[in-house]
């Protein structure tokens, strides 16, 4: 799996590269429009992370060029501009996803996995960790082939963890992701804990071999008994 990172900020380029290489991807980088254009012309990539605000050009033009030439590389736009118009025009021009800065590493990885999976089998509905399967569309969760009933919040929490296996999720970040903006400003995270407790109980009662573990009281991590399959 080959990934091209088009990003003008060296430090960000470096952290993304490091994170993705760590996931086992082959990563190449381009610091500006010209270099990105050259790389895209010369090679095929499974996924291109495209910053659309480049010092010497608009990343959207690269996307246009790519599509004009009939290349099927997956493109995830990474932009500092979190505007709907940018998102819409990016997706209309054939981007597979749109990620606004500042993103979480785990979020980026999840998006890449999702885009690549979509490319492979035409769908990204199912997430699998251990013997747990989560269907994002029908919102069903199965443990070893048997469905377990989850409440809405429980499902949302599990989905969040399934997309970020082995990643320490801060309680505050989880609260904001599941309960919405500003939930991380609550006085305490009792409400998060209550939901996690129920979710854990349901998972373990169903015999799941994944587990949501508390990490020093700051957050949680989804761990799997089996080694996680390579992306």
């Amino acid at each position, binding site marked *: 799996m080959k990934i091209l990172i088009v990003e003008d900020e060296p430090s960000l380029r470096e952290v993304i590269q490091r994170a993705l290489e760590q996931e086992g991807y082959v990563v190449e980088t381009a610091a500006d429009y010209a270099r990105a254009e050259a790389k895209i012309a010369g090679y095929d990539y499974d996924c291109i992370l495209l910053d659309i605000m480049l010092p010497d050009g608009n990343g959207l033009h690269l996307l246009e060029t790519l599509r004009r030439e009939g290349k099927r590389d997956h493109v995830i736009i990474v932009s*500092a501009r979190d505007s709907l118009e940018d998102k819409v025009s990016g997706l209309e021009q054939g981007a597979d996803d749109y990620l606004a800065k500042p993103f979480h*590493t785990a979020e980026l990885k999840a998006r890449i996995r999702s885009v690549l999976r979509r490319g492979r089998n035409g769908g990204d509905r199912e997430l699998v960790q251990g013997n747990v399967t989560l269907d994002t569309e029908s919102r069903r969760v199965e443990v070893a082939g048997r469905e377990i009933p989850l409440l809405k919040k429980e499902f949302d929490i599990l989905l969040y963890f399934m997309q970020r296996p082995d990643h320490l999720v*801060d309680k505050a970040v989880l609260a904001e992701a599941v309960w*919405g903006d500003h*939930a991380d400003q609550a006085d305490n995270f009792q409400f998060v804990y209550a939901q996690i407790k129920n979710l854990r109980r349901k998972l373990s009662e169903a015999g799941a071999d994944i587990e949501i573990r508390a990490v*020093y009281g700051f957050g949680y991590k989804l761990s799997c008994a089996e080694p996680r399959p390579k992306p």
Partner: protein
Amino acid sequence: MKLIYRIALRLSLTLLPLLALWATLFYVIITAEINDEADDVLEDYSELIIIRMLTGQELPPPNDGSNNSYTVVPVTEAYAERTPHIAYLDAEVFIPEKEETEPARILKTIFRDRHGRFYELTVATPTFEKEDLMKTILIAVVALYLVLLLTVIGVTMWVFRRSLDPLYALLRWLDGYLPGHAVAPVPDDTSIAEFRKLNAAAQQAVTRSEELFERQKQFIGNASHELQTPLAILRNRIEWLLDRTPLSEEQTGELVKMQRTLNHAVRLNRTLLLLTKIDNGQFPESSDIDLARLLAEQTQQLEEIYRSRGLRLSLRIPERFTVRMNETLASTLVGNLLRNAFVHTAAGGRIEISLSDGVLTVRNEGTAPLQSDHIFDRFYRNSGNPDSVGLGLALVRAVCRYYALDIDYRFERSAHCFSVRWK
């Protein structure tokens, strides 16, 4: 007070003493002139009588139909010596024919006949009634004052309106001017140099303020955009440490705290971008939003988050209340209003949310009124909550302004009360 009324008032007040002065002068001059004429007549008459007496001719009859009358009385030498020989005076005389007294002009002359006897001749001619004259002049002057005043004011008004039309055009234009909104250029169809100058100055000021406004908006927007990349780098580096390195509890704690502070900065930045976008009017697409449903959902969400506080909640909303708004903005408006109430109510406090007749009211118990002038300002914070960004109510106001909704804050029955009215 409008300029035109001030001018009218000043004209009236200035004309009043001027006309009074003029009336007095007129009276004095007329009186003097009439007396002069009467004196001439009296002089001729007395001369005639004296000549006749001295030459021994027959004296004219006391009344020859001219209303002039005369008397000749012999006087002593002593009297003649202490009395001026010619004296004019005004007096009331009795006219026997009319049987009434009338004002008259009198000439007294003392003369001596050839026998050395002194006589005093008094001739009188009826003259005008001074009071009548004064009254007449007063009436005339008042009438003149009114007519003159009306004319002057009328003419002034007309000239004023005609000449100051460009000024009023400019004022009307200024009334319609809203900073940050596209406006027609300052009207400038006048040939008057002063107004052209004024218009040019207004145009210049507006252009400059527009530029500043635009630049300020751009600056906030750009600064926020530029911050996104460094924030992303920091966030990813911290996550890398958390995920890839074996850490002690203390180290993890420090990193998580850094991450939370960073999230705070991210939210701040995002909110500023949102404000900039609202100010730029970048939310064109509207849809039908069921406000009642939105309220119910968000309230439920917040209730769950703040359950540990034991707040007492009352929600009185209709089945449905649909407004035409942008979805993001509607949820920003409702969310921030509700969150504000939840965050700033002490444990066990009461929150009342109601929606009726197009008015959304959120009341939450509090101890003292807030500074209503500032609560909607950016970064105004009344609470000691370090996690509060101080932009929530600024967002609420920005959304309200965007849709021209009325937002109101008041403190009543020891509760903060925010209400938004859909027109």
